[in-house]
């Protein structure tokens, strides 16, 4: 049962990610990115990481992509003025490299069996919270300082006079 869902959501995530980079219109790309994030959240749920899945949806799907779409709407490039896509050597090479990477990871993954589902308790809000404030406290605090720096940077960019 779990394998069925894993294959389903995994396939949707991969397919949607390919669509993100191949669509011509940025808004379509953003919507496919939303789809990919959704499937990844579903994969998190399959691994019992419910908290991570909820946060993924709230932050990435509910806020970050909305901001992307916001910017796309504000810039509002009409369809006919979007740059036309051309086949360049770099792009062909990129696709080939991506193919090799996928093949390699598939070969590598075959050596390992699919891991057993973790016990339900590791993904709960309580477990994640305790881990964040004990074992990973330093990383957590550094991230918050980074975010604070980003906030200050955004304000100083947006405000002409402080």
């Amino acid at each position, binding site marked *: 049962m779990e394998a069925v869902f894993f294959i389903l959501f995994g396939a949707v995530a991969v397919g949607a990610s390919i669509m993100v980079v191949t669509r011509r219109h940025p808004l379509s790309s953003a919507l496919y990115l*939303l789809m990919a994030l959704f499937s990844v959240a579903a994969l998190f749920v399959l691994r019992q990481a*419910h*908290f991570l899945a*909820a*946060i993924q949806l709230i932050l990435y799907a509910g*806020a970050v992509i909305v901001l992307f*779409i*916001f910017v796309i709407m*504000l810039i509002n490039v009409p369809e006919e003025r979007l740059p036309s896509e051309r086949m360049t050597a770099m792009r062909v090479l990129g696709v080939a490299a991506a193919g090799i990477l996928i093949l390699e990871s598939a070969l590598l993954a075959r050596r390992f069996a699919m891991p057993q589902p973790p016990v339900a308790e590791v993904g709960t809000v309580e477990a994640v919270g305790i881990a964040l404030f004990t074992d990973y406290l330093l990383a957590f605090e550094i991230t918050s300082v980074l975010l604070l720096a980003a906030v200050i940077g955004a304000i100083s960019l947006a405000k002409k006079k402080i």
Partner: protein
Amino acid sequence: MTAVLFLVVVALARIAIVFSFCFGLVVVFTWAERKGAAYIQDRRGPNRADILGFRAWGMFHPLADALKFLFKEDFIPDNAQRLFYQLAPMFAVAPVLMSIAVVPFGPDVTIFGRRVALQIADLNVGILYIFAVTGMTVYGVVLAGWGSGSKYPLLGGLRSSAQMLSYEVSMGLSLVGIFMVFESLRLSRIVAGQGELLFGFLPKWGVVVQPLGFILFITAQYAEANRTPFDLPEGESELVAGYHSEYASFKFSMFMMGEYLHMVIGAVVVATLFFGGWQVPFLADTGFVLPGGASVPLPEILVIALRTGSIFLKSLFFTWLYVWVRWTIPRFRYDQVMRLGWKVLLPLSLVNIFATGLVLLLLGK
């Protein structure tokens, strides 16, 4: 095998009951909104639709509306981006309907010797799940604004998405106090915690322990539902009808449905988090136990009926509150809405978290 069958039947039954509860409340709500508006403005309100001479205080008007929506032409403007235009109404309804899944409508009951929770799914992330899925409704607004290929919807969509994003921040933060007091995100645990008594006589409802949190949450929720005094996204005088100007027929009705469902579910969530959910004051599993020591024993079936009835009544009251506020308070200006969101609600919700933490620390929890 029977166990699996039983689980499937129970799951389907719960989903069917909750869905019909929500849609039923939406129908009642559209009627109550018009009647309420009329009485607040000293009018009679809709009272003309009748079936065989019965008018039922205008109760048939929602039915007439639904029929009209179904029979209108389903029109797509020339400039519209067809895919986005069609997707938008779905985004407006589906996520809202999903969000009701974690709300408990009563205590566990025993059916054929098996315990059944009156809740579709008791998730560990609880309220975060509601935030996660209702956060998707903003796509309905954005896609409608963009996909219509017209200026007013675009402006409405932009306004609305900015507003929804801003208020989601203070909405989430205003609930942190509740999580701290009841030590869980699980709605069933929060409701169970609200059954206790404070000082031996005061029900420990969310609104009693978190009065500021309640005011902040309900304000943010009105903004989130694009409801007056925050209904800038569809300010008729400036933007025609905002993001759904170009929609007609059933697609338009889906936007309306999404909006009213949002409010109904918002009311249910407020009742659950701040007004005890299915708890009735002083009602224990066996019957009423009053603070003085007196008790009135009641049969189990009556206790369950009282409890599910109480969440229904509380939800009705908060849906009515939406009507009441809408026809009492005028619309803000857009910059005022933004200032309120970022410069008043957000700092206050942070203060609320700090104060709650301080009190819990001093109480030694």
